[in-house]
């Protein structure tokens, strides 16, 4: 089967800046992907390239087996919700929801109405007068109700409060379950979304750092906490991702442990605690930077 997205050796330079640097990956149909990375890592540029809004400096992109640039057939199956979406002067939310169905064949008005009520979005107020959170909720509603086979959310919830974000996650999961589609969620609120993701792409400094199943990634590390001597004895020659300590106590992040290793750790009086996806990515990003500096 053709992957939903296939990217090969993709690069985008702005002058001397390599915003996207020799990136290759595929996105499979009907999975929820997390596109994660720090500010300025290249996430937005990558999504603009994928949706045909920027031209690549080199490399190839295929969406549904075709190049996306000026390709109506591809783009009508794609929905890109941007952090800073602009609307025509004098537009009101109701105008957005009137025009959105023109662009999305699968638009579900009933679902949109339900979301408008969930988010308590005032339909008749001028968009200019809306709060940052209300503006974001318009994007979230369009992204969900469009039910596009490929949907990108680029930091969709600037200004959304915790309640509204939870509504977004819950509605996304519910609707994805009944209408499976490919979703790419770009965010820096990693911990909030980590359980929703099936696959994780981490981009750092324009390069693709991690391309892995979320479950595998989650099991890649564990925190081992206990008396310094016991912790050191247990970790032996293992690769250490992070090391912390206070007084005689030591907390060390190591690669994932097997069931028998976990038992050994418990027997040695050590405590094991999870490493969140967010923490893991911070530590892996940091390690990679060190390795990069060492080799440079």
């Amino acid at each position, binding site marked *: 089967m053709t992957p939903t997205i296939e990217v090969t050796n993709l690069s985008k330079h702005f002058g001397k800046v390599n915003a996207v640097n020799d990136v290759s990956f595929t996105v499979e149909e009907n999975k929820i992907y997390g596109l994660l990375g720090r500010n300025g890592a290249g996430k937005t540029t990558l999504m603009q390239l994928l949706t045909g809004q920027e031209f690549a400096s080199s490399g190839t992109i295929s969406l549904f087996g075709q190049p996306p640039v000026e390709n109506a057939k591809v783009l009508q199956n794609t929905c890109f919700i941007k952090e800073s979406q602009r609307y025509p002067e004098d537009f009101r939310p109701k105008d957005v929801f009137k025009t959105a169905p023109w662009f999305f064949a699968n638009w579900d008005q009933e679902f949109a109405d339900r979301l408008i009520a969930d988010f308590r979005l005032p339909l008749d107020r001028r968009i200019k007068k809306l709060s940052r959170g209300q503006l974001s909720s318009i994007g979230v509603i369009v992204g969900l109700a469009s039910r596009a086979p490929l949907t990108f959310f680029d930091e969709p919830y600037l200004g959304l409060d915790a309640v509204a974000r939870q509504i977004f996650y819950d509605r996304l999961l519910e609707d994805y379950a009944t209408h499976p589609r490919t979703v790419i969620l770009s965010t820096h609120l990693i911990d909030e979304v980590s359980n929703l993701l099936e696959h994780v792409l981490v981009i750092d400094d324009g390069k693709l750092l991690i391309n892995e199943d*979320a479950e595998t990634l989650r099991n890649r590390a564990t925190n081992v906490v206990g008396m310094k001597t016991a912790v050191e004895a247990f970790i032996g020659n293992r690769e250490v991702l992070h090391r912390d300590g206070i007084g005689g106590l030591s907390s060390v992040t190591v690669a994932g442990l097997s069931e028998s290793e976990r038992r050994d750790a418990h027997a040695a*009086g050590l405590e094991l605690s999870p490493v969140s996806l967010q923490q893991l990515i911070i530590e892996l990003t940091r390690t990679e930077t060190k390795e990069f500096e060492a080799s440079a």
Partner: protein
Amino acid sequence: MDDSRPIFAQVAENIENDIISGALPEEGQAPSINEFAAFYRINPATALKGVNVLVDAGILYKKRGIGMFVAAGAQEQLKGARRDSFSSEYVRPLLAEAEKLGIDSAQLTQMIAKEANNS
């Protein structure tokens, strides 16, 4: 869903707990994958993986086009497995903590007997 084991394993264990407690009775219909996913706020693929652990173990079975059901004898099977690991999961950590505090096994036995009488 926040201990350090894989999420799918935690989902499987939660379903097991519901079968052991009788919340999910034998021959009763289990919630669907999508219901589990929404309830635990996890990706449906993760929920499916957790449910499949129990399908492979014969705890749940699928009826084509209807859904998933709890197998007959599932409760006893799960209780048996939990009994087998009771010693390593509960007794050994209890002994380790007691030793740390200088409670010997005679004192510990007394404490258990006393608590059992009180409850």
